[in-house]
């Protein structure tokens, strides 16, 4: 079947967060700091305030108090803090380049942009650290691991620590992944509307309507039901809309000040500085093996980059602990804090980062052993999770190896690199293994049989592009024995039955089950199924 929202998307009928036109809407433009660390010593906003169409220029000097911005009790310039999201316009501190130091609100976007350029700031600069190599020297154990030795971020060891060092056949390699940006086609945007002094509606680009609702209810000390988040269409996100970002806080503050709905869309440039990225990550892998290709030890160390004000961690090392049957295994995860904005998960988050290092090291080791890389992996294959000593629920990796090898003609591969040529091109065959958890959570879906014979399902989940609405329609159609055309699945609204964020490849797993259960419950509650003809049903409804 076609995507249920395909027609809307390709004809422009789909409404994204920056496309809501509310009565009295006005436009916010952020002014960013031009230093990476220090304090704002003065702000000249007079010219901006006098510019045509300007409704407000908000800075830390005049921003309303945001109840959720309580002091953490720690100095955020110190890297060891657990921290939290940036407190926008909260004080004179600058923690990263392009940090919002003001928002200009005007009646048109052009006027807001123009006035934003008229805001002038002076700073007392402090020495910033944006060099990962230097920061890595002060890398630290994540706070969650310090507090809880069982945390997946804590150091792990089975057998002897760093046993690879004494191996006769060993490799030791460093791997670096530089910062990578998500840059979905749709830039981050929000329209914030205080419908009453204590009722906030957000048309927001987010991967989780519930998460965003929770964040802003907390920020403004409101009951969650007083905040409504709408994200009917999301134009790609890849992880960067799993977090609430400074521009969202700024728009909500601005809407409060001008008492009108405020629309704020980031520029493509601001997408580099305000809404997360895959952190720069340094990894080191040591491995030893017997001459016949059995791994005897692995040590995998990683230093992930984070910001000075918020600890971001990801599971870079988890798969190394379970992927191969190595009797001695050590992992160490550390963070290094830079004076930059916070990173966030990026599609195939820590798992992809870690797999790059582990699988590259596997190839290095196979090369040292003069073993086929696939054969080397097979010799270290494990039928149970060596970390938890439990059998896998399912594992078809051997079958996957076999199929893959057949499909790409792996048998033609030469062990010696650069041995195969096609004209001026060198031909290489490579392989790698990636893993990702089969995550699953709780979700609610409502199902309603309507007088016209269609079934309306609703859920607060979002669809950032994978086709959630289409998948749910298919699941419901199957469960109800109805054609997909009879199913309407509405999503992206925090007022709908609850569901988690669209992240971690968990949505179809989670929401799909709830959709199926809701459909089966609906079916059971009806006297007969499929439901009688629409007219008849409608008449029955009227009678009751």
């Amino acid at each position: 079947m076609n995507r249920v929202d395909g027609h809307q998307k390709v004809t422009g009928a789909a409404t994204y967060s920056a496309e809501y036109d509310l009565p009295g809407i006005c436009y916010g433009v952020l002014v960013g700091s031009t230093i990476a660390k220090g304090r704002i010593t003065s702000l000249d906003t007079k010219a901006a305030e006098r510019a045509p169409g300007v409704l407000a220029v908000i800075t830390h000097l005049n921003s309303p108090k945001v109840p959720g911005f309580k002091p953490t009790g720690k100095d955020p310039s110190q890297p060891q803090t657990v921290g939290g999201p940036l407190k926008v316009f909260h004080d004179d501190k600058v923690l990263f380049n392009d940090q919002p130091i003001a928002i200009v609100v005007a009646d048109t976007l052009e006027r807001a942009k123009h006035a934003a350029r008229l805001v002038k700031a002076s700073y007392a600069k402090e020495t910033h650290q944006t060099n990962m190599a230097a920061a890595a020297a002060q890398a630290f154990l994540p706070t969650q691991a310090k507090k809880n030795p069982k945390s997946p971020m804590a150091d792990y060891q089975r057998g002897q620590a760093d046993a690879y060092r004494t191996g006769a056949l060993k490799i030791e390699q460093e791997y670096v992944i530089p910062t990578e940006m998500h840059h979905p086609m749709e830039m981050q945007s929000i329209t914030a509307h205080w419908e009453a002094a204590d009722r906030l509606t957000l048309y927001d680009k987010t991967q989780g309507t519930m998460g965003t609702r929770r964040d802003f209810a907390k920020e403004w000390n409101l009951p969650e039901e007083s905040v409504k988040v709408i994200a009917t269409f999301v134009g790609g996100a890849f992880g960067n809309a799993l977090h609430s970002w400074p521009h969202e806080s700024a728009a909500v503050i601005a809407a409060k000040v001008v008492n009108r709905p405020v629309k704020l869309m980031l520029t493509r440039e601001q997408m580099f500085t305000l809404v997360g990225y895959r952190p720069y990550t340094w990894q080191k892998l040591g491995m030893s093996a017997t001459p016949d290709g059995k791994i005897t030890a692995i040590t995998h160390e990683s230093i992930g980059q984070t910001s000075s004000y918020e600890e971001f961690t990801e599971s870079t090392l988890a798969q190394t602990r379970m992927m191969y049957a190595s009797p001695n295994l050590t992992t160490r995860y550390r963070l290094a804090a830079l004076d930059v904005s916070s990173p966030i998960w990026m599609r195939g988050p820590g798992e992809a980062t870690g797999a790059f290092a582990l699988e590259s090291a596997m190839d290095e080791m196979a090369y040292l052993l003069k073993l086929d890389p696939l054969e080397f992996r097979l010799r270290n294959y494990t039928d149970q999770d060596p970390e938890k000593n439990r059998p896998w629920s399912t594992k078809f990796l051997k079958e996957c190896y076999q199929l893959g090898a057949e499909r790409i003609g792996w048998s033609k591969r030469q062990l010696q690199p650069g041995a195969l040529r096609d004209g001026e091109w060198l031909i290489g065959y490579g392989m790698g293994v990636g893993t990702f958890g089969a995550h699953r959570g709780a979700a609610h879906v409502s199902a309603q049989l309507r007088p016209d014979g269609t079934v309306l399902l609703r859920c607060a989940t979002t669809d950032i592009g994978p086709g959630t609405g289409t998948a749910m329609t298919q699941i419901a159609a199957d469960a109800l024995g109805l054609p997909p055309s009879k199913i309407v699945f509405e999503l992206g609204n925090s007022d709908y039955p609850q569901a988690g964020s669209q992240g971690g490849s968990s949505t179809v797993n989670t929401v799909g089950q709830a959709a199926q259960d809701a459909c089966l419950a609906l079916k059971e509650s009806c006297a007969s199924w499929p439901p009688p003809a629409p007219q008849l049903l409608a008449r029955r409804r009227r009678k009751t």
Partner: protein
Amino acid sequence: MNQFQYVRPTKPQAAIDAVAKDANAKFIAGGTNLVDLMKRGVMTPQKLVDINRLPLAKIETMGAGLRIGALALNSAVADDKHVRAQHPLLALALNAGASPQLRNMATVGGNMLQRTRCSYFYDLSMPCNKREPGTGCAALEGVNRMHAIFGASEQCIAVHPSDMSVALVALDATVLVSGPKGDRRIAFADLHRLPGTTPQRDTNLEPGELITAVDLPTNAFTRHVHYQKVRERASYAFALVSAAVALDIENNTIKAARLALGGVAHKPWRLAAAEQALIGKPATEDSFRQAAAVAMQGAKAFKYNAYKLKLAPNALVQALKTAAAA
């Protein structure tokens, strides 16, 4: 954006007068660069003189050459039958630039007058002698991986971004100019300037001077030509380095050569000495390598662009090999 006046004259003289009399006035044609610069506040003209109504878009054969009107669109020039037959190098360079949408807007005159894409020139919070003379050059000690390896000064290390201009300088083009003091012709190699102590001046045009056309002399470079553009993605990116080459080969001996590099200097960088080094040589990789070594004499890298010292000669050799094989 700042407020500005907008006029649309229909006669060249009226356009020239409008700009010559007003230091804050600028010509606008396709606007593919100027409008961006205005949106960002990098350029703040008080008056725009739209020249799109001037009759300057023709491409015509003129005696022993081809005359391309300044308002001819990049896409129209790249697709023109005379250009494709007589100056295929120009068509290749044009099609390597920007995107189809931009080539459908951008004009020949505007293309050669586009400003550098140095990120510090675009960033109003950074010093830039080109944008604000006397403030300094942030690129000198900054992230200068896109920057010049030839002809830079302490004041500016920006590069000229045009692909088309690299072909035009190789093909010995001449720029026709009308100005308050009358008409004149400028050899293409003399149109752009090196930064020296006045990086705010990209070209040798005088205030109010309007480019009306480009003349291309007939030459023998109709077959062995290539434009090798090295960039970080397959399309719609400025060159890290580009090489425009044209060879006249007879019995595998090079009779004449035209070589130029893009993305390496404040102006399209003609390689006269390397051309000389190729004359009378066999069209082999060895000859090309030797010429590339000559081409690179005097190159100087900064902290982040040392890769260009390798990339430029390699691009040149690759371009020569491809051209010779054509």
